[in-house]
């Protein structure tokens, strides 16, 4: 039953030291936070540490949570700040190397897995190549461009939510998204040219 409760209700319960409610929130959002931090940081161990730290901070702040604030937006605001802190600590201004280990079937999204299962080997190869192209292109984006793409296209957030998380006007979110997608499109176009040659 708790699994059906909205985040904000669960958080209100967590504020009363209800660890089960908090665990529901964790189960619901850990993957999203982990994947966001992973794509931003590029390494699974620090990403997992950041995910843990993010939820720990939520727990520590549970009594200060206002149900008027959308939980997910707040959660990602914390996650993003932790990512930025990590970037600062690393003193890395540009994209860092992401894990490019071979794809494991368990890690493939169900949608893509279904697509791959029904596709011929050539299509599978193309899909995986495209995925690597996009992954590499994402890594080369500056963090302010990358984060808006991840929040919009991977997490499906609205512009207003993203603006709140990254603390900028909606218009800036829009222009950053356009710029990021142009860069990604450029990478895809270059890849298609290569494959056609």
């Amino acid at each position, binding site marked *: 039953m708790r699994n059906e409760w909205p985040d904000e209700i669960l958080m209100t319960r967590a504020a009363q*030291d209800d660890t089960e409610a908090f*665990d529901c929130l964790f189960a619901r959002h850990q993957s999203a936070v982990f994947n966001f931090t992973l794509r931003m940081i590029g390494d699974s161990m620090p990403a997992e540490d950041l995910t*843990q730290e993010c939820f*720990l901070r939520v*727990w*520590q702040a549970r*009594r200060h949570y*206002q149900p008027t604030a959308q939980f997910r937006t707040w959660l990602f605001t914390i996650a993003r700040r932790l990512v930025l802190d990590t970037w600062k600590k690393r003193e890395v201004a540009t994209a860092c190397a992401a894990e490019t280990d071979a794809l494991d079937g368990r890690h493939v999204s169900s949608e893509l897995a279904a697509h791959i299962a029904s596709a011929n080997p050539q299509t599978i190869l193309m899909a995986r190549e495209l*995925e690597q192209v996009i992954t590499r292109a994402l890594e080369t984006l500056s963090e302010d461009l990358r984060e808006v793409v991840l929040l919009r296209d991977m997490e499906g957030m609205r512009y207003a939510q993203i603006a709140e998380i990254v603390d900028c006007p909606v218009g800036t979110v829009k222009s950053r*998204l356009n710029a990021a997608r142009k860069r990604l499109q450029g990478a895809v176009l270059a890849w298609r040219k290569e494959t056609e040659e």
Partner: protein
Amino acid sequence: MSQIPESAKCAAVQAELGTYLDAELSPEQSRTVEQHLEFCSACRGVRLALELVRQAVRQLPRREPSAALRARLQAQLQQELHTPELSAPLSPQSGECAPPAPPLWGEAGQARSVLPPELEGQGNAVLGQRSATALRIIYRGSLRLPPLLPAPPGPKPAQTIRRLIVIRDSGTYRQLQTR
């Protein structure tokens, strides 16, 4: 009334295509884009390319954190539950730490409000090992520690640490981490 050149219309529509695909345009703006797309194959091509990129990002494989993460967090929560809360609260609105608390040892009144009586007035000495009752201080954020005790001869700048954890460890206090 002068006609808007087609190229200008295409540029305007293409600038809005991402927002259109994200369903962030008003109904009226969306209709304008759709009407243009009906007869403009060039803009339809741009839309297709954009859709491909959006879809490719959306379908990037998602990885799962290790199962140990949950156990680690739960252990931390239990620890948090059984220790006094002295950490700087997070602001739900901003997602960052609330304005840093005044330096623990910088202002006498502030320091004494969080320390057990036997440690009052010890200033930085609390960072050394002492026997005392249970105390746990977790402070995140920047903490500046100007010396309370008389400064030794010679210049000694205030120490800045980013994180301070003082816990009781087998009856003694120990500074776990400073950065």
